[in-house]
């Protein structure tokens, strides 16, 4: 992997959170800053989860090795954002009113699903180290299939919380479906081969043109 890629992505992933802290402290989040904070961190969690799912298709399609090495970092950043998201809810939204929080989790389907997504993300974050990977062996791969379940729950969570306008969650749902399709054998075979042979023929053309 090119040396600069990983640090660059690391910094890029921090930008939204830095902006949010700055905006919060300087009154730039509008009339309802706590709602804005919840929404922004929720969306960034979902974006990062989907971005994580882009890495494998990207590697297969382009033949690059580096996307796979970003996967863990992107996943951990998704976890980072969901932690802020959840804390905002627990603290700034409910002020640790555990009775109310419990009722919310049991009775509000969108919260139930969000909470489930968070709970499933915790073991993924905990077992993301190399040592854990080695220790768990084949079970690690099995466990980390949850990386497909969590974004699906995230999309559902978003879908269920909007009042009428489902356009935004729909976009995320379609992206998720697309990313899953790219993992479907018939598609991978064609997509992967197609792109790679394009690259080869590109190179061929370029070398034909060059003197």
């Amino acid at each position, binding site marked *: 992997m090119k040396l600069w890629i990983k640090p660059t992505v690391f910094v890029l992933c921090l930008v939204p959170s830095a902006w949010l802290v700055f905006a919060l402290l300087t009154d730039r989040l509008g009339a309802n*800053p706590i709602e804005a904070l919840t929404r922004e961190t929720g969306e960034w969690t979902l974006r990062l989860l989907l971005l994580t799912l882009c890495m494998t298709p990207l590697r297969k399609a382009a033949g690059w090795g580096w996307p796979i090495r970003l996967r863990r970092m992107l996943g951990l950043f998704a976890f980072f954002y969901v932690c802020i998201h959840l804390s905002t809810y627990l603290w700034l939204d409910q002020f640790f009113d555990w009775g109310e929080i419990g009722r919310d989790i049991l009775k509000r389907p969108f919260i139930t699903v969000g909470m489930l997504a968070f709970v499933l993300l915790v073991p993924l974050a905990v077992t993301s180290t190399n040592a854990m990977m080695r220790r768990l062996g084949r079970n690690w791969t099995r466990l980390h299939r949850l990386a497909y379940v969590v974004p699906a729950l995230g999309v559902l969570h978003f879908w269920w919380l909007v009042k009428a306008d489902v356009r935004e969650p729909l976009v995320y749902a379609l992206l998720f479906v697309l990313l899953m399709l790219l993992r479907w054998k018939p598609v991978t075979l064609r997509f992967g081969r197609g792109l790679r042979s394009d690259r080869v023929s590109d190179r061929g053309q370029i070398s034909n043109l060059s003197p």
Partner: protein
Amino acid sequence: MPLIRTTSDIQPSEITPESVYRERRRFMQAGLALSGAALLGGMSSAQASTVTLKGLTRSPLSTDEAQTEYKDVTGYNNFYEFGTGKEDPAANAHTLRTSPWSVTIEGECAKPGTYTLEDILKPHAFEERIYRLRCVEGWSMVIPWIGFPLADLIKRFEPTGNARFVEFETLHDPEQMSGQRWPVLQWPYVEGLRMDEAMHPLTLMAVGLYGAALPKQNGAPIRLVVPWKYGFKSIKSIVKIRFVEQQPVSAWMRATPEEYGFYSNVNPEVAHPRWSQSTERRIGDFLKRKTLMFNGYADQVASLYTGMDLRKNY
């Protein structure tokens, strides 16, 4: 509001007047040239600004709670006709043409017809009413409206004995209302009140806020304000008022009947199917507060609903 400022540090009442004053001046300079004429019929905009500011009496039905800042009242709105984001209406509502404007009166009444806004407004004296507004989403504001009782308007058109409900409609024109180009709701927006709710002294036809004409994103040129019901009942930019016998089906009832009923009274005990209604965040406050029955207007309106199961009639 910066997070680090807490309610106990700075009372909203300490900071509101100054900023309100500034905002109000800015608003009048920028906005009244456009809206003053529409607000007060034939009056020139210069006259309008002094009249609306000085000639207003404050209704005793007003609350003396700290008012929500002008920038929030006009910058954080639900008005799906201009987009579903809270900042969308302020950004997109400039395409609305509020003058000329007319309102059609229909149905069970002696004087149906299409009236110009000037005709609608002429006989009424405006007053300032400072009301709490509670959104179904769990936030609230305190807004100094300008308007007149809906009851006074209704009486002029002499509804018949069959008029048991009043139905209202918002303008439907996707050219002017960009949000209507997408069927988020079934357009036009429709709302309704039972006749006794419509005739209640708290029910207001609003034409302004903060001492000047209604900004477009707040439902110019004329809107309803029913302070004991969730905000979406207070329909904006009204073009039609119909007296009917059957209970109207509102836009939100049509969209999700299991979540929105006809009455939609503020009620901390009846949760929205997807979230609790027991607390609310007053815009500008850090801590949430308890939501009050009928949004704190129970003394005045609870009697309208005696004997009704408010869980069923949500």
